[in-house]
């Protein structure tokens, strides 16, 4: 892929990728024709996923390299525009592609915290970090900490934090890969994970950053095309306007009017909603009563409850006039009865919460911080802003993103490439809220009020795939769908949009390929970050500084393999909540890296002791808060100022800043070399600067 000059290289890249995009569109058209000819959907899904993964592997193999600079930073000649695309693909994960629109659908305005947080962070990257890191021009983020603060302790903390947040994040990606592969090919989840990982390794194993960069550019093209086509179609269907971002204001007005009608028991639709809500309120009260009795009676109550169910089932079996199905229902209730007090508490607590949520009136989509009283609204507002800040600062501190800005040829291109990255990212993030509103309009007007005997095809299709994604049950047995009877999982919205819009199956396969591209590209970047931290920062910089190039690269590749296998193993255990893990990675990165990185550039006085205190303190505070408040760990301490564990960074960041400042002021100013380094990174070019000619 080498060209004689940078300009020649750029036009060559443009030609390659234009051809590539054209070829990809031709491929979609070809599959559409195959579909018309009657090729079954399963086969189309296989072809689509197989061809795209082979394509990434092909680019990966073509980009194989044994040059250190090519392997770690793609030779530092990635033009701003292409680095922007690669960063965008690196950035947008499975959570953005599949989860975001669904989160917006379910939580309305409050979900916009993710939209703002995941874009606004790039302002911080552009203004505070990218140009300076590019000028510094080494290979990893711990490199900067090591050079700026001296000694191996800041570097070691950096390596630890980089691995911690990248690994937390990569698990979420591998999970997404497994989910998509298993859903669209029918393979088992565990096998799906390993197939996806094979794809990741083929991309990055032989060519490191160089291979990852060029596959990420191609993955961006696929994911953005896959995201846009169904939304544009849906927009034309409902508004006649092919620009959904402009058209959905009008749709939002209609959704808001419909929400009002459904919440008003005087209208016929509203009356039916109220009926269903009453049933849910009873269920909630029932579960709460059981919980209360359990607290009072303990195991004795549990045994008595179980005995009651056993008797009821036995009576039904003995009697002759049992209603059909009643015996099965009693048997099912008995089989699902919680085994011990802890399980009962969980199950009934869940039931009470579900009932409470379903019994509440519909929250207005566009209303910020909806709540019944001032305290609830205030708590929501605090958490919204805290989450926005954590996501933004986390964005500006995640090593796999910052690393991408080492790959541009110049400082000027680094600044420009942040602009391109943000533009390409915003394209998807501006579309996601439109998709959420359009899908909501479809559900509120076409699905609600329709008859159970003639549900739209996509509803029954998805309900048969996975009950947590789509479930419609006729609670009040009137044969008509009410909104409170529909349960939608957040992943459904994007995956089902092609079917909601009435598009052929080939577009569904395209969306799956887009989701796979999003998950694979992010996983690639993260795994490379982890492997490079271990091989470059730990092995080369700390253990054996005289290691020959071939051994450094061999170790790097070996570690990549180990990390991938370990990640697949952890993922196959199916740990926790994906959105929480992603959020936690941001909070951790924000607390550990941001203060030391930003002050390292903007405050000459910052020194080693400050960096150690700030990074360790910030990271410890953040980890500690997550540990004591996130239910998974079982401590369940009270929240500080009502801040949710996902925004733990809100406490870690100030501790990090205070640590850097106090630690620095208590000890001597950094030495001449560190101060010269600060001057070096601040100016794109200094005539008398001996450091200017870096690799």
């Amino acid at each position: 892929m080498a060209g004689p000059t940078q300009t020649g290289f750029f036009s060559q890249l443009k030609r390659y990728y234009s051809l590539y995009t054209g070829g990809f569109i031709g491929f979609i058209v070809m599959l559409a024709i195959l579909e018309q000819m009657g090729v079954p959907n399963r086969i189309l899904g296989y072809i689509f996923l197989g061809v795209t993964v082979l394509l990434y592997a092909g680019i990966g193999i073509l980009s194989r390299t044994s040059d250190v600079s090519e392997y770690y930073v793609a030779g530092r000649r990635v033009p701003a525009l292409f680095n922007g695309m690669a960063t965008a693909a690196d950035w947008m994960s499975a959570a953005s592609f599949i989860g975001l629109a669904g989160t917006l659908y379910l939580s309305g305005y409050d979900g916009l915290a993710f939209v703002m947080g995941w874009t606004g962070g790039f302002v911080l990257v552009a203004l505070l970090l990218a140009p300076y890191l590019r000028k510094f021009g080494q290979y990893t983020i711990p490199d900067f900490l090591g050079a700026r603060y001296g000694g191996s302790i800041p570097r070691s903390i950096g390596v630890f934090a980089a691995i911690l947040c990248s690994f937390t994040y990569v698990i979420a990606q591998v999970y997404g890969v497994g989910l998509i592969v298993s859903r669209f090919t029918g393979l088992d989840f565990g096998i799906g994970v390993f197939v996806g990982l094979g794809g990741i390794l083929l991309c990055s194993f032989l060519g490191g950053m160089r291979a990852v960069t060029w596959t990420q550019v191609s993955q961006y093209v696929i994911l953005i095309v896959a995201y846009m086509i169904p939304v544009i179609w849906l927009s034309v269907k409902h508004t006649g306007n092919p620009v959904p971002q402009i058209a959905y204001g009008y749709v939002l007005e209609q959704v808001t009017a419909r929400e009002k009608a459904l919440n008003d028991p005087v209208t016929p639709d509203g009356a039916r909603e109220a009926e269903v809500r009453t049933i849910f309120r009873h269920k909630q009260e029932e579960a709460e009563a059981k919980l209360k009795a359990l607290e009072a009676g303990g195991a004795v109550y549990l045994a008595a409850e179980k005995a009651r169910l056993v008797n009821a089932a036995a009576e039904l079996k003995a009697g002759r006039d049992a209603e059909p199905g009643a015996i099965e229902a009693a048997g099912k209730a008995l089989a699902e009865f919680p085994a011990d007090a802890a399980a009962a508490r969980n199950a009934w607590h869940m039931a009470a919460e579900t009932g409470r949520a379903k019994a509440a009136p519909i929250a207005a989509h566009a209303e910020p911080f909806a709540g019944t009283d001032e305290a609830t609204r205030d708590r929501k507002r605090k958490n919204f802003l805290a989450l926005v800040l954590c996501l933004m600062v986390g964005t500006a501190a995640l090593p796999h993103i910052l690393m991408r800005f080492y790959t541009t040829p110049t400082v000027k291109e680094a600044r420009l490439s942040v602009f391109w990255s943000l533009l390409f990212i915003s394209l998807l993030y501006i579309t996601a809220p439109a998709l959420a509103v359009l899908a909501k309009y479809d559900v509120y007007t076409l699905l609600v009020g329709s008859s159970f005997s003639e549900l739209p095809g996509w509803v029954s299709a998805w309900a048969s795939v996975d009950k947590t994604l789509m479930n419609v049950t006729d609670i009040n047995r009137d044969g008509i769908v009410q909104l409170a009877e529909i349960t939608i999982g957040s992943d459904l919205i994007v995956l089902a949009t092609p079917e909601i819009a009435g598009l052929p199956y080939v577009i569904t396969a395209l969306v799956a390929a887009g989701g796979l591209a999003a998950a694979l590209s992010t996983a690639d970047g993260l795994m490379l970050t982890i492997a490079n931290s271990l091989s470059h920062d730990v092995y080369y910089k700390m253990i054996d500084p005289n290691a020959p190039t071939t051994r450094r690269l061999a170790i790097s590749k070996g570690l990549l393999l180990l990390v991938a296998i370990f990640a697949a193993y952890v993922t196959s255990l199916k740990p926790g909540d994906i959105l929480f893990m992603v959020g936690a990675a941001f909070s951790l990165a924000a607390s550990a890296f941001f203060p030391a990185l930003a002050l390292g550039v903007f405050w000459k006085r910052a020194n080693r002791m400050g960096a150690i205190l700030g990074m360790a303190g910030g990271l410890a505070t953040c980890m500690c808060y997550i540990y004591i408040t996130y239910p998974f760990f079982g401590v369940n301490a009270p929240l500080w100022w009502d801040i949710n564990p996902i925004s733990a960074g809100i406490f870690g960041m100030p501790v990090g800043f205070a640590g850097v400042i106090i630690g620095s002021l208590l000890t001597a100013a950094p030495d001449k070399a560190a101060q010269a380094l600060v001057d070096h990174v601040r100016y794109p070019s200094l005539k008398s600067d001996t450091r200017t000619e870096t690799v």
Partner: protein
Amino acid sequence: MQLTEKHRQYWRRNLRLTGMLLAIWFAVTFFVGWFARDLQSFVVFGFPLPFYMGAQGTLLVYVALVGYYAYCMGKLDREYGVQEGDE
């Protein structure tokens, strides 16, 4: 290596620009977010203002901020003679 007064001036102007853009970033994000409920009644293109800002407006501002910064810094580099050689 010795920095000249000119170099220091370049850095001060960079700081001023960075500070100004960060202030705008902060205002559109947190100011609008904090007062979101009070701004509900304003309508733009059919959207309530806070929703429009969260879903689209702030994103466009962010893109503009980053683009403007890249443009201004490129100009500033040349003005102070600290730009990189041509490739």
